[in-house]
């Protein structure tokens, strides 16, 4: 999994995509209305539509009012959800309360501790080998009574 910052940046980019997708949905599926008595919704003939360049922003495909409302609602909920996700990610960014100086001090301290621990580990390995040698000696001496 990516680190928190990258997750956050991805989430923001997704939010931008959702903005576009929401506008696109509204644009594409809204209902067609007549503004005056003389207006008439143009019926596009099949072969006419096929001849024209396909343009996704161009053609409106109305859906029923209920479906349209449900779609809008879902998109709006998704937007809010994404925004809350972003806020959550912001509040869990690593080390918000640590200043740079704190960090440096901690790194130095850890470095020293690591050195000590490594030294101890080496000592332990050495002792282990000594004990191993002693044990081997004991067992050999037992084998030849």
């Amino acid at each position, binding site marked *: 999994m990516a680190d928190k910052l990258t997750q956050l940046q991805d989430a923001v980019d997704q939010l931008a995509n959702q903005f576009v997708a929401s506008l696109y949905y509204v644009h594409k599926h809204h209902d067609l209305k007549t503004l005056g008595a003389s207006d008439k919704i143009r019926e596009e003939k099949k072969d006419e539509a096929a001849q024209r360049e396909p343009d996704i922003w161009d053609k409106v495909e109305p859906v029923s009012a209920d479906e349209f409302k449900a779609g809008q609602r879902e998109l709006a909920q998704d937007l809010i959800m994404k925004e809350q996700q972003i806020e959550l990610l912001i509040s869990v*960014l690593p080390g918000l309360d640590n200043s*740079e100086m704190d960090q440096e001090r901690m790194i130095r301290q850890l470095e020293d501790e*690591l050195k000590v621990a490594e030294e101890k580990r080496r000592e332990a390995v050495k002792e*282990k080998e000594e004990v191993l040698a002693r044990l081997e000696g004991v067992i050999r001496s037992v084998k030849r009574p």
Partner: protein
Amino acid sequence: MDDPQPPNPLAAAFPAPPPFWQSFTPENIERISKLRASQNPTKREENGLPPRILDLPPELRFLQPPEPPEEGVYRCFGDVFNLKDPLPTLQEMSIQQLYTPPPSPSSHVDRALILKRLAKSLLLNFLELTGIMATNPEQYEEKVQDLRTLFINFHHLLNEYRPHQARESLILMMQDQLEKSRRETEGIREVKEKVEGVIEGLGSVKLAEFGNGKLGKGKVDIVAEGRDVWETLEKEFS
């Protein structure tokens, strides 16, 4: 470079490593560290590297890191990169800065607050944009620009935060390693104590059985016990 090329490097799926990797043998590394120590161990060059040694035997020459390029740029896979690659400020990108930068780079709580505000502004501006699109679609441009500025500001703040996160990750990794090292030491100590106990036990068993005259059977027991110990050891040390 006049080293012999590996056979048909163009046909390989991945390019072969540069030939000088073969110079990095343990002996060579030890030799160069001795040479460095004999020179002047405390002196350091500006970039933190050990001082350069001029008259090296040819097999050690590649163990010395080359000078960084003087012009400050280098090429990699056909692209030019800068040695120093600072994050351009918003002013340099001629983007309006929507927040007052934190007074010092150390106060990150403000940063989270600004980020949250920006996120909320994004939503609000989108709402305004949809309103504009519904009533007067011609005027979309200004609002879209606002949204763009908000997004860029958001990303910029996050990118400024990256070095901080890198240090934070380093701290976590070091803590992990420390923990691991301590656990290992602890484990080795425990096994050592166990084995010492076994050795002492063996000594007393031997004495007791010598006393009882059951040497033959005792020997088998001890050998069996020794085998147990070996098995435990193998398990613990593997």
